[in-house]
């Protein structure tokens, strides 16, 4: 007798045997979105990690960090404009080749179901972070139409959260190959969305798919702080 139907791995389509234990008998099968073989190819962020950007430090040469903070973050902290703009970033996984493929399939191929892979883990992370509002990094209207959905928004929704759009993108997404210095002096990318509800003194959590240089998230954070947010943190699926 088959108690529960077998699910297929969202990534490789191989069948996943449902785990059956007392919990699953009470609450229904705990459905895993992907198989163990695929899951093993993601690399979770491990401690020690940078206190600010959550990048793993264990594989990093010790001369690239100090007191648990990576050199990139030290530079951000040295700039008067960017100091403490982003309180902290939390990421689930490292941005390895496998993650890059999954994100490409999610964003560029448009396979929305990829968001479901991470819903349980994001949900848990969200429970452990103290925040008032969850704000997705927005896409420009053209890009949103092209893709059909905003990946940051989808990650939040699939994790059972209620993302709130406080921001609007005024600049295109193309973060061309600019030097870090140029990026630090980038013109405004975001502005407040007209429909934004008041958020004075609120703790805000930004959500996006990847933290690469941290400049997009900081661009968003600075606008929110200027408009009265108390603190801004971020949560991303992957740390590039």
């Amino acid at each position, binding site marked *: 007798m088959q108690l529960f139907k077998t*699910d*297929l791995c969202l990534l490789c389509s191989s069948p996943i045997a449902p785990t059956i234990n007392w919990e699953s008998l009470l609450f229904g099968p705990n459905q895993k979105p992907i198989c163990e073989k695929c899951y093993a190819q993601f690399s979770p962020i491990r401690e020690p990690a940078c206190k600010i950007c959550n990048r793993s430090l264990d594989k990093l040469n010790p001369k690239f960090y100090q007191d648990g903070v990576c050199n990139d973050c030290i530079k951000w902290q040295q700039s008067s404009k960017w100091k403490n703009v982003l309180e902290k970033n939390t990421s689930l996984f490292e941005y390895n080749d496998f993650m890059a493929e999954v994100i490409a*399939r999610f964003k560029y*191929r*448009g*396979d*929305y*179901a990829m968001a*479901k892979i991470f819903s349980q883990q994001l949900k848990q992370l969200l429970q452990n972070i103290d925040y008032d509002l969850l704000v997705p990094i927005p896409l420009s209207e053209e890009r*949103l*139409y092209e*893709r*059909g*959905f*905003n990946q940051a928004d*989808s990650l939040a*929704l699939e994790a059972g959260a209620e993302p709130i759009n406080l921001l609007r993108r005024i600049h295109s997404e193309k973060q061309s190959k600019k030097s870090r210095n140029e990026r630090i002096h980038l013109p405004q990318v975001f502005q407040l969305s007209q429909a934004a509800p008041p958020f004075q003194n609120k703790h805000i959590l930004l959500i996006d798919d990847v933290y690469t240089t941290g400049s997009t998230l900081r661009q968003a954070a600075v606008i929110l702080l200027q408009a009265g947010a108390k603190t801004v943190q971020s949560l991303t699926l992957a740390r590039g």
Partner: protein
Amino acid sequence: MLFLKKDEYVIPQQLVKGEAGEFVRITDMTNPKALPVDPTFPFNQNLQLFLSGRKLLLDEIPFSLEEIHNHYLHGYVDYRQGVIFDGKRLYCCRCGNKDAVFFASFHCARCKKKCWYCRKCIMMGRVSQCTPLIIWTGPTPHFSFQKSLKWQGTLSPSQKDASIKIKEAVRERKELLVWAVCGAGKTEMLFEGIEEAIQSGKRTAIATPRTDVVLELTPRFQQVFPDIPIASLYGGSEDRHRYSPLVIATTHQLLRFHEAFDCLIIDEVDAFPYSADEMLQTAAELARKKNGSLIFLTATPKEVWQAECYRGKRNCVILPARFHRYPLPIPSFGWCGNWREKVKKGQIPLKILQWVKSRLVSGKQALIFFPHIELMEQALPYFQKMDGRIEAVHSEDPNRKEKVQAMRTGDIPILLTTTILERGVTFPNIDVAVVGAEDDTFTESALVQIAGRVGRSPQFPTGDITFFHYGITRAMIRSRNQLLRMNRQARMKGLIDS
């Protein structure tokens, strides 16, 4: 995208200027009839050449929506549904997927609704409920190339038989199975059939499951058909924008075609993913014209087809001999006990050890097939104790190409492999062993293909094939019988010399 619905036709939302009305998704409309073709319309020939026989997403068409829509209004283009949902069942019109497991939905920024899309063919771009598939409904381009085949070679008698049957199938728009043993030379026997097809203006495609084969066949065909523009299509290929009388493509690429081919040739019909995948069968069905001919090439047809051939229920031609006129080497069976347990304990069964050692001594190269990557990698160090140059290769091996190359140059004496080297790759003078031939991975067709690696070159037409096993399976017996039967037939017909 959305459409403004009029009585007789539709207008894409992007092109609507101030007109009011109901905007709907293509999935929510009953397909309006394609508009009648206006013969006086000065249609864009480039669009015709690009779109004819295709079934594409708007994003895949490098012409403006205005121009596409103008052709629609004159009956030269039609918008078709991408994903259909009748409230219970979903259906993807591009790949034929109707399995609920392979659909997902999201709140769509294009149609502002819950929008179902097909995950089965997502790698070709997303088709959802609000995505139209665009097809050409105007006249198809004409072409005719006389005497296009420039080939000096000659066909063997059995290749000649097959070639005649293929020509007949092309001419009479029939279905044909070409059952040719590994090494029969199946490419050459297609030449005359394809020449005839192209001469009579019949658009032809050769579809194969593997990109490697597309890359190998394209220059070969281009050489013998120097004046024919050939489109070579695979995931990531460039020349999508040409109308070609001859298309060489991976089976996946057929999903972008719509009633395009008068003659469709499907290579390795037994191989993954075609036979494994209903999607690609549908694709082949949809890419071919309703009355087009369909030619299957295989060394190992499935059991049902074999029976149909022998009972005369299926139009087929059998090539039982290799072009070099030597018989097919026949596998022998060698019981090797519970080899899995042994490998786990760090041992290799004695019989296998002896087989390997005698190859290392005589200096003859060999391939050793394993059913699974894990066991193969566990066994590798023990093989390397005999000779440090022994290597293992599998489908996810990043150094796969280099290892195959090192085998070619003789730098690797013995290569352990999963079934990825079961077809396609040939080495001139090798022996072959299968470890765990009883495993389900080794189907009848896989074993025939593996045996087909041996004795391919006229200089070295023989070699040893041993199936090491822990219990003889039906597949092992059937594969051996298949090869024996082929040799018998070839002898009867005088196609082999010994």
